Structure formats: structure tokens, C-alpha cells
């Protein structure tokens, strides 16, 4: 079934729409004109009619599987809006703190907890939540606080490890630099000594080759 033109065959051979086109038809993604043409084809083509009927049956079966409503609870279930807002605020502040070289202090973590508690209190004072919902949100907020405290501690530990590795590398560089300095000094000293010796040799050579004033008159 490959052609896009239904009933457009020649010599009595019917051309059928593709499965892709039938999917557009079944899910109402085709133009009204094309829909009319496809319906007309179904009336004349038992093979396509059988195929489309099978697909329609599968669609009906799919509708039989109904998902139950989301069941919330204080322990499981998706965290409420206040919990997510508080978690997001805490995540941002924790990410900011762990971006610094020093790890978050106890004072900073206490400040974070106060900020989240203020958010939770604000939501409670709005008077929109029942007691049970408020308790569920508070439990979710506390759990979130604990999780992000653990996250902050882990980040601090990783930063400490990185710092130690960097310090070790820098110490290694220092050692190598010191060695290179020493070697350069040796070369410099040897070179200077070499120059000195060369100068002395040249001076001696010059003293051998320069004519003495007394010798010249005697020879004449």
C-alpha cells in the first residue's frame, strides 16, 4: 500500500494510501478534503477497511487502561508547591555557596534554614492550606532541607579534595622550578668560567705574538 492517490490505479489495480496516511486520518491530522477521499477509499477497498478497523480496535483497547489519580501522602508523593519553591531557593543558595572556595559555614546553613522556614510560614499564614496539607508540605520541606544539607556537605568535601590536588600539583611545580633554576645557574657559572679561561688564553697568546722593542734593533 504505497500510493498517495486512492483509487487512482490504472488497468483495474487499486492504489492504497500508506499506513502513515492512515495514521493521520485516524488521529485527525489530515485536511478535510483528504479525509473525504480516504473515507471514499475505505468504502471501496475491503483490504484497507479491514486494516483500519483493526487499528481502530487497538485504539479502543488503549482507552481501557486508565491511570488512577495521583495519591498524595506526607511520606511519598510529589512535593507540594511550597516544598518545590523552598527546594529551588535552597538549591540556588547552596549552589552559590559551594561556588566559593570556602565551604559553607554552620552560620550560613542556619541562615538558609531560616529563609526556607520563613517561606513555609508565609504560605501557612496565607490561610489557604488545611492543617493536613500544611503538615505534608512541612514534612516535604524538612526532608528537602536535609537532602540539600547533605548535598552541600558533599560539595564541600569534593572542593577540599580538589584543593588538595591543586596544592600537590603546585608543590610539584615548585620543586621542578627549583631544579631548573639550579641547573641554569650551573650552566651560567660554567659558561662564565669558560669565558674567563678563553680571555686568559687570548691574553697569553697576544703576549707571545707581540714583538719586543729591544729585539727588533738587535736584528738590524
Amino acid at each position, binding site marked *: 500500500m504505497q500510493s498517495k492517490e486512492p483509487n487512482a490505479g490504472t488497468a483495474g489495480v487499486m492504489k492504497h494510501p500508506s499506513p502513515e496516511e492512515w495514521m493521520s486520518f485516524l488521529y485527525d491530522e489530515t485536511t478535510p478534503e483528504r479525509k473525504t477521499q480516504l473515507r471514499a477509499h475505505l468504502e471501496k477497498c475491503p483490504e484497507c477497511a479491514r486494516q483500519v478497523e483493526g487499528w481502530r480496535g487497538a485504539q479502543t*483497547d488503549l482507552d481501557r487502561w486508565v491511570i488512577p489519580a495521583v495519591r498524595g501522602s506526607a511520606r511519598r508523593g*510529589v512535593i507540594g508547591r511550597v516544598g518545590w519553591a523552598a527546594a529551588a531557593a535552597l538549591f540556588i543558595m547552596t549552589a552559590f555557596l559551594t561556588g566559593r572556595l570556602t565551604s559553607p559555614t554552620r552560620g550560613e546553613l542556619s541562615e538558609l534554614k531560616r529563609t526556607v522556614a520563613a517561606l513555609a510560614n508565609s504560605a501557612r499564614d496565607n490561610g489557604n492550606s488545611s492543617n493536613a496539607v500544611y503538615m505534608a508540605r512541612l514534612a516535604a520541606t524538612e526532608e528537602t532541607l536535609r537532602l540539600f544539607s547533605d548535598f552541600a556537605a558533599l560539595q564541600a568535601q569534593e572542593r577540599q579534595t580538589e584543593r588538595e590536588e591543586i596544592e600537590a600539583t603546585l608543590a610539584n611545580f615548585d620543586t621542578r622550578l627549583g631544579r631548573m633554576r639550579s641547573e641554569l645557574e650551573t650552566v651560567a657559572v660554567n659558561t662564565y668560567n669558560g669565558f674567563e679561561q678563553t680571555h686568559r688564553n687570548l691574553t697569553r697568546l697576544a703576549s707571545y705574538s707581540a714583538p719586543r722593542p729591544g729585539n727588533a734593533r738587535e736584528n738590524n
Partner: protein
Amino acid sequence: MTGPDATMKTILPMLAGASDEQMMWRVKMAGDSEAFARLVARWEKPLVNLCTRLTGDADRARDLVQVVFTRVFSGRGGWEPRSRFSTFVWRIAINLCHDETRRKNRLRECSLEDLTGEFATELADGQSASPDLEADARERGELVRRALMQLAEPYREVLVLRHYEGMKFAEIAAVLGIPEGTAKSRMAEGLTQLNRRLKHLTEELSCNRKNQTPELRVL
């Protein structure tokens, strides 16, 4: 007026009519926690439904959705404003469901629901509340769930996104990164295979019932 109250009372009305992309922009640029919370409120149920359909496990789906939102927030720097938020979040959810399915296959986990065939399905709209019809509806729903779980991932994904989530084929193609024609052909093949598997499961079930003694049937 200062403090969290001022923030909530000023910003909330502005966020009420904001699109997903506008809210995600605020989350990306300003780390706006209230905008993020609103996105969660909007997308929680559709994502739980999607993850339940793809994994066949409603409880696990709720856990996965929490991970989805965590990844949305932690990956906000990578979100491009020109792309739709729905595409962004569906992709994260689908990838997580892939990982979950592969993890289950590796562990060959068999849930209690799989063993007993009792999955908490609800009646479809319009069905009678009588116990026999209720049991029959649940059973049929469970068969559909099992048949869907037996399909290969590429077919199951397209079926779930088109039939249950109501996404257009063009949108499905964008989310999955495939041509639109491929999305449609996978849909056709998926429906065909679903029919075949449902037929097989139904025959298996009626065969099992015939082999049970009357006493066992009562149990």
C-alpha cells in the same frame, strides 16, 4: 511590605498568565523558585501519566517525575529559549523512562502486580460500578498494560505520546528527534503489534482459566 510575602504577592499575578517558556526563562536567568514551582504544578500530572504509561508502574513513575523536575532545575542553564519547554521536559522524562526500563530488564524485576495480574486500574468513564464489570474492566486494562509493556520502546513511546498525551505527530517527531513520517509508521506498526499481543494474552488468559479447577477459580 517586605520579605517573602511581598515577593509572592507581586510576582504571583504576573506568573498566572505566563507561558511555560516565559516561566522557564525566569528560572534560567533569575533562578526564580516561584516560577519553577508553577511549572511543577502544571506539568506534574501529565508527566506522572507519561511515566506510568511508559514504565507500567505508577509508584515508580512518581519517583521518576521528581527526578525529572530536579534535572529540569539543575539543567536550566542548558535550556534554549527558542525551543519549547514541553519538548525539553518530555525528552528528559522519556530518557529517564528508558533508563528505568533498561534497569528493570537487567535486574529482571518482577513486581507483585506482574505476578498477580492485579494492577490498580480505574474504571473507564461510563462504566458500571457492579463488581463483575469492575473486575472485567480492570482485567482488560491490565492486559492492555502488559501488551504495551511488551512492545519495543520505539513503538511504545509513539503510542503513548500520540494516543494518551494527545501530541501531534510533528511534535512527537521533534521530541524523539525522528522524521514525522517515521513517527507515523511506528504508530501504525505499534497498533498492529498491540493487536497481536492482546490477542495472544487474551488467549493465554482464557487457557489458564480453563485449566484451573473450580476451587482455584474461587480463590
